[in-house]
């Protein structure tokens, strides 16, 4: 779908109601004076919709700004600073760590209308404003024989600004790298409302902003690197009677020299949830399903690599099926992209994890987590980018009937499994508020202090997305 926004009065067909319980606060009034009513939301019905991301509900903002230019962002930040309220940046709010859910009432700046996108084929670059939909970059680049590889599951929805803020990954990232590997330069507005343009040299400030989850600055635009797509892609699906065997197959395939472009795993509950949605004929009885793409410009090499993976899967006790057509391969990937939301069919709420562990530890890690889940009263499922050791264990629960503290404890135990095996807490979703409490387990006090120093240098008033990533100072693990 085109991301072009039409200039339309959002009041068409219905007058804006005089807001009952609305924010007739001075911030909203000042923003409206500066930016005009089209770009400022102050009614309760409008503000309520800017308090969540795809995992968590937060505090209702005092006002929402929908900027159409960097100048609008600068004006909004300065007004919020003058009013002394916190500022949270927001893209499509498809994130899974609470990154865009405000922890306290303040200003939300939603970038969904900043959608200017220019492709420079001669430089193999795209210039994208923060609100550009991720997939739109590849769609615009493809006629020039180029693509933008980072492909988070939400790439039809998510925005470039959000992808940079969380340093988003995706299935393609195993071979091609994550969002940060494709950013040549970016522009951001700092906590005082100053605009900056930074590149990857001289402190690599761009690298510092990437993955900073809106806590160091508000990314407004980026220069992205594009590459020609591989000429050939081949897909296989393997299924296993036990999750650990799937992890063993992955390790063996990579050790044998295969470099698949995508290596993804989902367990039995995930497979059944997406099968309920798409009816593709996925193996419902398998304990683990592995999806693999190999790609390249030489078909023989691509097929040889797929054979290496198939052999490793069969040796580990798996059953292998190759996709006969591109359409069949595409359908399998659509299934994989739908796993996370499809889990809503099982329980209304989730606590999701995003751990990364060394590949050699994968079989032990998935088995330990499976055992933790079996010993708990909750439904625990696992899926993820198993090729680079990035797993998404999800605890599914119903907060009306189940103990949320126990959910948190189980999530903590899972995080500790990752740390014990030399892993980290977040591969691509960010720390946000969901995993902030586990940071003291993962990071030593001296390093946390260094992170706080960075935060203070760029955001001395602690106005940008407070309550995210860093545990309050003085909290020691």
């Amino acid at each position, binding site marked *: 779908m085109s991301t072009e926004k039409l200039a339309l009065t959002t009041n068409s*067909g219905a007058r804006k109601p005089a807001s009952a319980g609305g924010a007739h606060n001075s911030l909203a009034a000042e923003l409206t004076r500066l930016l005009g009513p089209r770009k400022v939301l102050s009614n309760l*019905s409008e503000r309520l919709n800017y308090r969540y991301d795809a995992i968590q509900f937060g505090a209702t903002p005092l006002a929402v700004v929908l900027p159409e230019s960097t100048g609008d962002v600068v004006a909004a930040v300065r007004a919020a600073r003058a009013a002394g309220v916190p500022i949270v940046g927001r893209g499509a709010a498809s994130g899974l760590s609470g990154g865009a859910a405000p922890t306290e009432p303040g200003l939300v700046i939603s970038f969904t209308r900043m959608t200017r996108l220019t492709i420079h084929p001669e430089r193999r670059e795209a210039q994208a404003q923060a609100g550009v939909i991720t997939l739109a970059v590849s769609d615009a680049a493809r006629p020039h024989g180029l693509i933008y590889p980072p492909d988070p599951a939400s790439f*039809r929805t998510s925005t470039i600004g959000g992808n940079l803020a969380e340093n988003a990954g995706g299935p393609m990232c195993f071979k091609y790298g994550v969002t940060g590997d494709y950013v040549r330069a970016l522009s951001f507005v700092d906590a005082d409302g100053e605009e900056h343009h930074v590149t990857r040299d001289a402190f690599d400030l761009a690298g510092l902003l990437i993955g900073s989850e809106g806590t160091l600055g508000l990314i407004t635009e980026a220069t992205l690197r594009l590459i020609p797509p591989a000429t050939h892609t081949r897909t296989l699906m393997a299924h296993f009677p036990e999750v650990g065997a799937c992890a063993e197959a992955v390790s063996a395939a990579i050790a044998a020299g295969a470099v698949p472009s995508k290596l993804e795993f989902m367990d039995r509950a995930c497979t059944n949830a997406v099968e*309920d949605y798409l009816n593709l004929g996925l193996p419902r009885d398998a304990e683990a399903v592995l999806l693999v793409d190999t790609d390249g410009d030489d078909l023989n090499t691509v097929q040889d690599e797929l054979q290496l993976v198939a052999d490793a899967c069969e040796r580990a006790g798996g059953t292998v099926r190759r996709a006969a057509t591109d359409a069949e391969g595409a359908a399998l990937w659509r299934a994989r992209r739908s796993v996370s939301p499809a889990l*809503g*069919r099982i329980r209304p709420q989730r606590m999701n994890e995003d751990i990364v562990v060394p590949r050699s530890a994968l079989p032990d890690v998935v088995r330990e987590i499976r055992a933790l889940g079996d010993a708990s009263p909750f439904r625990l499922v696992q899926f993820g980018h198993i090729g680079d050791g990035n797993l998404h264990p999800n605890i599914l629960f119903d907060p009306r009937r189940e103990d949320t503290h126990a959910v948190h404890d189980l999530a903590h135990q899972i995080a500790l499994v990752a740390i014990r095996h030399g892993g980290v807490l977040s591969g691509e979703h960010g720390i946000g508020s969901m995993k902030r409490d586990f940071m003291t387990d993962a990071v030593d006090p001296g390093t946390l202090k260094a992170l706080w120093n960075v935060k203070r240098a760029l955001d001395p008033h602690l106005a940008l997305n407070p309550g995210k990533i860093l545990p309050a100072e003085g909290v020691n693990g």
Partner: protein
Amino acid sequence: MNNDIPVQTLGGQGEVMAHAVDACVHCGFCLPACPTYALLGDEMDSPRGRIVLMKEVLEGGLPLLDAAPHLDRCLGCQACVTACPSGVPYGELITAFRGWSEPQRQRSPLDRAKRAAILKILPAPKVFSVAARLGQFAKPLAPALPAALRSPLDLLPESVPAMQPSAAFTPARGVRRGRVAFLVGCAQQALTPNFNAATLRVLSRNGIEVVIPDGQGCCGAAALHTGARDEALKLVRANLNAFNPDDFDAILSNAAGCGAGLKEYPMVLHGEPDEARAQAFAAKVMDISEYLGGLLADGTLEPTLPASRPLKVAYHDACHLAHAQGVRAQPRDLLRAIPGVTVLEIPEGDLCCGSAGTYNLEQPELATQLGARKAKNILSTQPDLIASGNIGCHTQIQSHVRRQGDRAPVMHTIEILDLAYRGEL
């Protein structure tokens, strides 16, 4: 999504609504599928945003009046249902919510009169026919009229034919292979009587006898989707009494909106004594393309004559066929089965054309933008013919394609099949 919707006090419809909200994990996968989000780019005008707004209103945390503008802008196209991995029955939620909230709405007398008129005229083909003919005379005056009156006039087809009532019984030609009941619909009897005539001819030619049960009326979708639940219930019960599902292989509709409405009967009567009857009824309901597509798949569909020349047909997915009923392949397969016909895919094919039942009359500005966008996308394929399976889409697309200066005929899929059988395509 966690919620405190007071199901106990809201009854059966409350259960329908709470179930939908429960299933939503607010992932945002629905956003790119939503036409109003595409136009407006704000969360309140997205499916996810609307689910949150409905939840807040039902929980008592937000006045209905505050949420209303955004909920009123929803087309009910259900593109979000197709996009949703969690299985949120959004269509059921918005329909049930509109039924629950409408009695609490404070509308202006003019607004009330307009809504009442639509619901009176639409289900009464004879009245509609007269109104449409009067409208023909008023068409030249359109530019001078206010938008609320102009939009229905713009949608009237180039000419309004005379009413042709359909026979109560149409025998099968040749060996009788099946027996179906047929819902004749409302507006299309007045505006496009050939839809029904073509349907009867094609079924008969395939050995299917067709009964048009007496006592049937409007499917109730228009009333239901505008929140007039009491009127809708009367129409639903009348149809349940008119059609005995045990007597027929299938109950057919050739209007996507009506077929989707008929399939919603169990939801409408959820928790009520007639629910089981509604389920038995809905289990037999099929769109004409679904039924004929089944014959094609079985290899029992009579082959048509070839088209007189190679024809490129742009097939438009009516939202109530594709998203609401999941019928996408069958109409394309039926068209492709005609020798000489190529089916073209329309860019942004999942995006609503803006007709959306009475939306055209309620939200003319958004409807017009979507109509223009749809026509532009259709014409980009350079079709010889444009096909759809819904009267609302038909009039909207015809009107916008003409506005963009193109003369390509706009037809119902069944009309194209009918012409092919008669060797006139």
